[in-house]
């Protein structure tokens, strides 16, 4: 059959739209995983055991099973109990929660390693426990784990390809649509891979700048 890359430019707009969706999913799920990670970490460390225990179980399940399985559960499982989420929303929630659990593990360890003097300094000024946690401890803990959380963000970008399986029209599914019309999988999957690679490079550049800015303060 041979290769013929000249067909690719004809579907450029299709791939571009897919790319925009992939970026949107990555940003949406990335934000969810960031804030979710902080909330989960606080629950895991300070929550009442009634919340903490089921949460522990949830975290354990999410870290021990494949993301794809989790996406199936959220997308098809919630339909069973009457919650019919659009594929895009289900994908963002699935990706976001999955990586929130990983971020939470990082943030928990980081919170525990914040110097005791920081609590004393804040409490001495009259800040309450909650204020100390919110304004002093969590910002420091989060800053300290920006590099590994950045790696999670990069993993999230690549794993966003999985939401094509539940029918989210992002980059991978766009490539599949082009393939179904042209029967040229090699060319289009390679093109999609190139797009992912470019987004990945941009994301890495952004993360490196962020890390440098934080390092400059410390």
């Amino acid at each position, binding site marked *: 059959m041979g290769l013929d890359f000249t067909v690719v430019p004809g579907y450029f707009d299709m791939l571009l739209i897919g790319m925009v969706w992939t970026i949107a999913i990555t940003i949406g799920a990335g934000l969810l995983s960031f804030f979710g990670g902080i909330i989960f970490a606080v629950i895991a460390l300070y929550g009442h055991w009634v919340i903490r225990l089921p949460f522990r179980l949830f975290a354990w399940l999410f870290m021990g099973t494949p993301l794809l399985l989790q996406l199936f559960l959220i997308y098809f499982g919630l339909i069973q109990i009457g919650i019919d989420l659009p594929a895009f929303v289900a994908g963002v929630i699935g990706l976001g929660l999955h990586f929130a659990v990983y971020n939470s593990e990082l943030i928990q360890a980081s919170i525990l390693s914040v*110097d005791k*003097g*920081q609590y*004393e*300094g*804040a*409490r*001495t*000024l*009259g*800040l*309450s*426990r909650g*204020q100390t946690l919110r*304004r*002093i401890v969590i*910002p*420091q803990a989060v*800053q300290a784990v920006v590099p590994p959380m950045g790696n999670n963000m990069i993993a999230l970008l690549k794993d966003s390809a999985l939401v094509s399986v539940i029918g989210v029209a992002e980059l991978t599914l766009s490539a599949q649509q082009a393939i179904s019309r042209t029967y040229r999988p090699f060319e289009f999957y390679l093109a999609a891979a190139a797009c992912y690679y470019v987004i990945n490079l941009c994301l890495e550049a952004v993360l490196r700048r962020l890390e440098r800015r934080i390092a400059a*303060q*410390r």
Partner: protein
Amino acid sequence: MSDTPFIEIRHAAKSFGALEVLKDINLTVERGQIVAIIGPSGSGKSTLLRAINELDPLTSGEVWLEGVQINRSLPHRQYEKHVNQVRQDIGMVFQHFNLFPHLSVRDNITLAPKMLKGMSSADANKLAEQQLAHVGLSDKIDVFPSRLSGGQKQRVAIARALAMKPKVMLFDEATSALDPELVEEVNLVMKKLAEEHMTMIIVTHEMDFAASVCDRVLFMDRGVVVEEGPPGVIFQNPKEERTKNFLRKHLSR
């Protein structure tokens, strides 16, 4: 008002299990007084200081500030509120500064006034500028703590505490983590506060400083106040054997 003492500590005791770190300590401090607490490490002097603002609550005894009991036993929620309130009136400076590394010098100083006193950003900024000028660090306002020397960090920590307009300042070995050449700049700031009649309780092992700045000196050993008096008496003419021994070791250096 005038007959209630400014700060009063009554029968203060604290123990960790079987270990008694403070044994029946009584102390009153008048407004504007500057008290130094000296003594060997493990004597309980830092514990006493940290009991004043409830960082290390006492096992028994009372701490009063201007007729208000600080270590009241209250239901948890009310206790927290009460303690957060009284701590705003008690400035504290630590051996290891405890500046917030993720905040600039300005934000270190303005955080608590803005958050707890509802001060506007403009007013808080002005306050930060004043306080920094006071400790001689006006040019460092937008710097992060990691860029400061130890002495500068401690001066910012003092400015941060002063920005809450405290009624009393507690110093917990404020200069003992500093390189020797940086001690003087911090001492100068503390002397300046003394001249402004700030009430201060200073845990220190710098005898010269205690002698030159303080009105009263307490010598503590093994959880009790062994001897107290004006610096002239304590340093030149101590009565107790333990005080003499301690001073012999520390003044000869």
